[in-house]
């Protein structure tokens, strides 16, 4: 299993989840596996940076299902994989594919 970040994160990218993840598996730059640091730097450099289409992703292979991120998210974007609301089911696939992994 894994946790999945869904639509409400888009454009918000608050990174509160990143700070509590014990295995640093929540990324903005999925290739560099930046643990959200690049998003933080972008925001620090320009607080008004355009985040319109951006969001963070959880690496399904590394997530340990500890649920620490879920209550931290100010926009309730994070769900356990099997509780993702129907309207955001696409995000499961997107999340896996972001890391080149096959969605179940």
């Amino acid at each position: 299993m894994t946790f999945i970040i869904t639509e409400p994160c888009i454009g918000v990218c608050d990174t509160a989840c990143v700070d509590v993840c014990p295995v640093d598996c929540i990324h903005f730059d999925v290739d560099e596996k930046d643990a959200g640091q690049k998003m933080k730097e972008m925001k620090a450099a320009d607080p008004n940076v355009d985040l319109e289409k951006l969001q963070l992703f959880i690496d399904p292979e590394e997530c340990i299902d500890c649920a620490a991120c879920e209550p931290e998210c100010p926009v309730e974007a994070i769900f356990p994989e099997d509780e993702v609301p129907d309207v955001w089911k696409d995000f499961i696939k997107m999340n896996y594919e972001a890391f080149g992994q096959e969605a179940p």
Partner: protein
Amino acid sequence: MSNKKKKTAGKPQVTISPKDYKGKVNPDWCVGCGDFGVLNAFQKACSELGLPSHKILVVSGIGCSSNFPGFFNSYGMHTLHGRPLPVATGAKLANHELTVIVTAGDGDGYGIGGNHFTHTARRNIDLTYLVMNNQIYGLTTGQISPTSRMGMKTKSTPYGSVELPVNPLTLAIMGGATFVARAYSSEGSYFVNLIKQAIQHKGFSFIDIFSPCVTYNHENTHTFFKQRIKHLEDEGHDPTDWKTACEKAMIWGDEIYTGLFLQNTERRTLEQLEPILDKGGPLAHRSLGLTEAQSSKIIEKLM
């Protein structure tokens, strides 16, 4: 079991997915508890070793960490506080073809069960002992444990603990364990590899695992370990050198080592030395050699 073939570049072919080991019950640990990392790494290790659920037995004591077998899909036993090692020893002797894993907490394993620890180590029985060490009694809501720091303030020590903590690694090394390691629950593949090595080791294998209690131990947190953990391998440590292993195990400060401290592949295991187990397969599969009347008589006498 789905037995899916998974293709992941560069990794060995996995035939049983980590998800196949998911138990019927979801863990009830607090969000962020280190024990999630242990369960996850253990599932990955079993998957990478291709161990089918019906060949694994997980035995635990009592504690948050000891709820482990309930969350893992295999044979399991949730025993008495401090007693998983003797129960597992019995199970292993009865069926030495099973992979027997023992999961415990620091209170369970080093406190009330401390005596069993040294005796199981010196017997060198082929068990894998995973102790989730959070330096506190979690389940009973935050009292000092045998690994709590001297001076640590808890519910049971409002003025600070006045006891010296035990060092589980030197205890295991001196006790005669043939595989002694330390890990941190969030170390991903490094931790998975240690568990795999421990399971593959023939003899008593022990991993002391820092598994932070996010609710009752506000000193030994994830951040505390992330800032301090160093890998023994990077120091070129030789796991046959028990003296250096003890020295490295005693280091506790800005640097704390994880990795394989000691391994002895020469000593034979209890099962190998026990003449009864020499031929004829596991005891559990052998005929008792009693008639039904004789066995009923024994059962009657015992009831």
